[in-house]
């Protein structure tokens, strides 16, 4: 019974996946809305940001807020590591 149920659920998920893949635009064909942002970056990044390195223009200008999140993740990570490592010192002080 469980095997049949699992098989049914998996087949259903597979059918949904195949339907979604069939709906996707062909590779390189047409102009879906998802391509417009990257086309805008390619055309205007140097003019708008003044940075000739494209990656820096994207991660530090268009998506600088995302990079702020990365910095905060680093901070949280090192804070957690220091807390965990200092547990074993048993209050010897720093």
């Amino acid at each position, binding site marked *: 019974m469980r095997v049949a149920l699992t098989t049914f659920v998996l087949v259903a998920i597979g059918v949904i996946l195949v339907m979604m893949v069939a709906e996707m635009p062909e590779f390189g064909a047409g102009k879906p809305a998802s391509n417009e942002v990257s086309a805008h970056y390619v055309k205007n990044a*140097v003019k*708008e*940001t*003044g*940075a*000739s*390195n494209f*990656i*820096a*223009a994207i*991660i*530090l*200008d268009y998506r*600088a*807020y995302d*990079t*702020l999140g990365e*910095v*905060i993740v*680093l*901070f949280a*990570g*090192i804070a957690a*590591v*220091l807390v965990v*490592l*200092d547990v*074993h010192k048993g209050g010897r002080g*720093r």
Partner: protein
Amino acid sequence: MQSVVLQTVIKLLLPFIQVYGLYIIFHGHISPGGGFAGGAVMAASFVLFAMSYGVGEGFKRLPRLIAQWLESLGGLIYIALGLTGILRGAAFLTNVPEWLGQAGQLFSAGLIPLLTTAIGLKVCSTIVTLLYHLLEEGHYDSQTD
């Protein structure tokens, strides 16, 4: 483990590693690289020194307290640079590409090199702080054994 060969080679290599790290950080807006990669290279130089000469010597060159302060300072500089956008009446972290010269020059691209420097500071001090703690654990264990 104190080895004369290792210490001599590290002593010769350190300036080149650090100059390369600074180059990657400051040219982040011109060539491939940036704050994360350059900060990791800079941190590698400090960690190499601490591993070859012992953690005590490493603490003398870059004390742990300073590393921890730089750590918080990097993030705060990033946020402060972002707030300049609000002070000018635009959105948070708005860039000013008109500052300082044309695209492709070292001093160009407005906020981007400053943000890269802040990230480099942050990444460098994070890795150094982490590795100092790990190295110090081993130091402590080998003393008590």
